[in-house]
């Protein structure tokens, strides 16, 4: 019978040696098992343990015990109600952030829908409209539609015509001035709702010089002022008033 001299600690470890060697995860245990491997006693111990472990695996599980685990919800998890979920601070925070993100996204989409070539100039002129005093304009009481000839003859401004929708309104005054970019702008003040009309050059492509036109009427709003803009023959016309865009809608629908 082969036997190996083991220290007391090694003997302690060898008695607890795992049934399968691949389960040894301990350096001291591995060393003790390595040393004990040469002894018959350890070989018999391993064979004994493996046989007992094999037998343990075949111990039949009583049918009633199997039933405990066949039930779907061994430990039923209480489902969260919508009410409870809604009160969860994390859910509230997520919902709030989603709403803010959605609102910002929607606002940007709406803004983008209203964008058109010349929108920046139009908004700048809305600011001009809000700060203009009637004394700055040359007084004249005529139909707005007739001022196109005046702008052409006096200022050589071609196609600076008031569209038919706004041509019949009586004017209070008019003037022509250069904006920040040195472009010629015609401004007309009319009696109707103290509206102001602006005629200014449409935006052009910086490379080709072609007019960046757009079709129909577009709206702009800024600081309590609203405007409707249309482009024709390279000139933009804007009717502006102190109010909301819906205040201008009747004039456009009337034209249609």
């Amino acid at each position: 019978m082969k036997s190996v001299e083991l220290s007391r600690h090694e003997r302690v470890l060898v008695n607890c040696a795992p049934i399968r060697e691949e389960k040894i995860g301990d350096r001291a245990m591995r060393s003790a098992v390595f040393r004990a491997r040469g002894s018959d006693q350890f070989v018999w111990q391993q064979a004994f343990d493996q046989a007992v472990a094999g037998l343990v695996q075949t111990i039949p599980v009583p049918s009633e015990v199997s039933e405990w685990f066949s039930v779907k919800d061994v430990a039923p998890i209480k489902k969260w109600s919508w009410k409870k979920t809604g009160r969860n601070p994390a859910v509230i925070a997520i919902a709030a952030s989603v709403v803010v993100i959605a609102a910002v996204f929607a606002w940007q989409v709406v803004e983008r829908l209203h964008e058109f070539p010349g929108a920046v100039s139009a908004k700048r002129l809305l600011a001009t409209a809000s700060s203009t005093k009637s004394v700055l304009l040359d007084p004249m009481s005529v139909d707005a539609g007739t001022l196109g000839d005046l702008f052409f003859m006096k200022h050589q401004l071609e196609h600076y015509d008031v569209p038919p929708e706004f041509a019949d309104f009586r004017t209070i005054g008019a003037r022509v001035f250069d904006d920040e970019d040195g472009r010629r702008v015609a401004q007309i003040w009319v009696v109707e709702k103290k509206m102001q009309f602006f005629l200014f050059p449409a935006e052009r492509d910086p490379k080709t010089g072609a007019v960046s036109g757009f079709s129909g009427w577009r709206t702009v709003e800024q600081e309590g002022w609203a405007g409707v803009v249309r482009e024709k023959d390279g000139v933009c016309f804007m009717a502006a008033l102190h109010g909301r865009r819906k205040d201008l809608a009747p004039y456009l629908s009337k034209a249609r």
Partner: protein
Amino acid sequence: MTGETRKAQEAFHGTLRAAASGASNGQAPTNPLWFYCDARARCLELSEHGLQPEEVDFPEEELSPAAPDQLKKVDPNQLALWISSAPDPQRTALALFYLDQFDHREICELAEIRLSDLSRLLAQARRQFQAWLNATIPEQGPLI
């Protein structure tokens, strides 16, 4: 651990209830061995009621190379009874060791014993079981 289905079921459901109650209060167990520790404690508590195994000094015999062959003839239920009637902490040590799922450190933690105690209890149980095997399934001599 209990030797009785009813007691085992009571311990099983008690552990589940404790786990569910802790989880609903946001106190999920951090110790991965918590379920085994709790179930063992409940099994031991339940085992204190009812019939108790007689305290007997089992004879011990050295391990035999023929033990695996002898074990082939043992009814698995007999082995289960033999383990469940062992006194604790030997019962816990045997049950966990032969389940072959835990290392020696985890068994010591679960059974709340030192490594030297685990070593002694396992070695003693092997010798006692070998003696029982020799008594019930005598070793076959070489065929002539």
